[in-house]
């Protein structure tokens, strides 16, 4: 037993000496925080980036899921980590929403934004045997029979709820015209659509894809300026209902506020390299994800714009504090 102890002690001592010697960032493993659960879309994207960045940086990049509180817990963990470049994370559209509700003080300016890597616009999907052929028909029906049609896709005040609320705002529909049925994410909402529990789901088209392919649901529009790569025949909201309203659930990589300049540059260059690779393109295509890119200042502007429009919708909904 004594010899084991001695061996362990000398191993520890050796590690101490070696650790102090090297210098260039990164010299130890990096923690990559994900505010959402293992296996979801954000988690898979984060794990893809972590694995690829690990190869580029030559240090382990460990994905850590910090779930709960509709993303508040994980987003706080990223913002509150020491700004040394050894903790970064994936921030999502919720960062432009939560502070309006008074759930957290955090907003897009609480971070050192590195890069936006993906954005999926909201869709507008109905049951396959629904009598409606266009978004306009659905909205007209809702105007004539307020409260009859129900919609779902996320929890109360979640991104797809705001997508619908923004659309109703833009088309001068009262917020009570289509009540929101909170759900535990897109998959249960799509299941409820197929079960006949709700009439409309506003989740992104990649999330609705399986039931659309299975012939149980049909997409009527995408809330974006351009059609989706996954379903090129589905019209934009402008074509479908004459509304300019667009909204996307986006994912980006960020660090705590005040990252050292050189660390920031190195990380952005690494992320860019991964994003540009053919492998990432294949990954995104296979999952149907929208490829979007905006780094540093562009990312800041992107978030600021989203933040304003989310604030307006949440005030209209009576969700903002």
């Amino acid at each position, binding site marked *: 037993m004594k010899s084991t102890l001695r061996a362990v002690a000398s191993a520890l001592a050796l590690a101490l000496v070696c650790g102090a010697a090297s210098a260039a960032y990164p010299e130890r493993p990096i923690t990559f925080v994900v505010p959402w659960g293992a296996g979801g879309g954000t988690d898979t994207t984060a794990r893809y980036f972590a694995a690829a960045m690990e190869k580029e940086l030559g240090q382990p990049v460990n994905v850590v899921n910090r*779930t709960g509180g509709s993303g508040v*817990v994980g987003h706080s963990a990223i913002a509150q980590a020491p700004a040394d470049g050894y903790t970064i994370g994936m921030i999502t559209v919720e960062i432009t929403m939560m502070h309006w509700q008074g759930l957290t003080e955090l907003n897009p300016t609480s971070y050192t934004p590195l890069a936006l890597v993906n954005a999926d616009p909201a869709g507008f999907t109905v049951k396959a045997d629904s009598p409606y052929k266009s978004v306009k028909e659905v909205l007209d029906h809702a105007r004539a029979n307020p409260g009859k049609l129900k919609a779902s896709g996320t929890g*109360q005040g979640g991104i797809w709820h705001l997508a619908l609320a923004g659309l109703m705002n833009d088309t001068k529909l009262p917020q009570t015209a289509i009540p*929101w049925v909170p759900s535990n994410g897109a998959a249960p909402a799509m299941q*409820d659509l197929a079960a006949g529990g709700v009439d409309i789901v506003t989740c992104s088209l990649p999330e609705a894809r*399986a039931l659309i392919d299975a012939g*149980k649901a049909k997409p009527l529009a995408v809330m974006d300026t351009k059609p989706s790569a996954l379903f090129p025949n589905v019209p934009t909201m402008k074509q479908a209902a004459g509304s300019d309203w667009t909204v996307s659930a986006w994912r980006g990589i960020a660090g705590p506020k005040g990252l050292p300049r050189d660390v920031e540059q190195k990380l952005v260059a690494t992320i860019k390299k991964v994003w540009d690779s053919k492998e990432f393109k294949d990954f995104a295509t296979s999952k149907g994800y929208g490829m979007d890119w905006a780094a540093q200042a562009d990312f800041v502007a992107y978030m600021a714009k989203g933040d304003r429009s989310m604030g307006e919708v949440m005030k209209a909904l009576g969700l903002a504090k």
Partner: protein
Amino acid sequence: MEPLLAAFALVFEPKTLWVMLGASLFGLFVGAVPGLTATMATALLVPVTFFMPPITAVAAIVTATAMAIFSGDVPGCLLRMPGTPASAAYTDEAYAMARKGQAELALGAGLVFSAIGGLFGTAVLIVSAPALADFALRFSSFEYFWLVLLGLTCAIVITSERPLKGIVALLLGLLVACVGLGNPAGHPRFTFGSTELMGGIGMIPMMIGMFAVSEILRYAADSGKRFDVDEQPIGNVFRGMWALAVKYPKQILRGSALGTLVGALPGAGADIAAWMSYAISKKTSTEPEKFGTGHVEGIVESGAANNSALAGAWIPALVFGIPGDSITAIVIGVLYMKNMNPGPTLFTQNPQNIYAVYLLFILANLIMIPLGFLCIRVAKKILKVPREILMPVILLFCIVGTFAINNTVFDVGVMLVAGVIAWILEENGFPVAPAILGVVLGTMLEENFITSMIKSDGSLAAFFSRPVAATLGALTLAAWFLPPAIRRLKRAAGA
């Protein structure tokens, strides 16, 4: 025929077989550590599957999860610390058997009938996946509301000794489930300004605390007293299993069928299947008084149920891309990445792939038997380790396992508090299992009630307006009001 041969070639490839062996050992280990669940085993495998061909990737997940659900029984039986929530329903029963020296029988039954349940679920997957998936898709919040209520009723059935104390435990669990932001209103409840509490109180830290930590506390309080096991050699374990299979054929069939069905319902998984089966087994048994004292009947039925639920969950996942449980939610992501997009086309365009998945299920359930027996052998040795060494090491495992769920020491704190409360409650005759069930089902109950009310514009009649909902509702109400009514009638007839 050709696709079937192609499927055989895909599965019986050396690389796939090696991966299955590795995934088996990984699954057995993860399932046996309190805090590491089958879901987590799957999540940990995802980055590894990035580098595998599609069928090998699916093989790794199928094998690891089947093993994990079984091996969750092992610490439950030997130490009264369920390794995964799916084992929590019958942990007390299995532990009681271990104390009677029948650990091998309890674990053997868990193993063999897990495999049979898994094979049954696979058979249903093969024969009627599309039809059953179509049925499962008809479940909306109205149906789920009744299903959850039925599940909660099971908790009371299990603890019929002192129903009042069982109800208190259940209510405490339900109250814990209310904490946090995860409610239909998105309103932070009982968070007292804490960011961590916004995420709610996790079911797994609670479970580890209430079972494992309270057990360690009980050991600490009783230190001095030794844990005595009568070593009864039971001879050929397989013959024992055959005897059980002959004695309880109905239970095995019922557990497997219920497990497959519950598994196929999105949102209800192996844990709920095990609870319901255990309760049904007790309710219909000819010797219900033996339940809880170390009686194998309930283990046979619920052991079959939790593994068949695992296979059942793949039915809606493969047919519609709708996850049947948290494991298949991850699997669907992997399938997309491997260009095996779930949907009806998966069955028609590349039939060899789907045949290969069937083969994997069968193979995984078959190799579970020898590997599982090996695992039981090794695990039994654990009982020989002196408790003063074993208990601290297990405590460290609990701490690390709890930390690993969400990578926060906050959960370790939850585990400690839950452990102390459970210890005091048990000392005073309150069962802890219903509290765990309350945490599992609390959120679902509320969500489904409130979304149903929104859909029906506040009308309660809607809970009976759909055929499946009406049937489930009638069943639930019958489970509540029939037994007392029958008792009263009998008494009236006797008087």
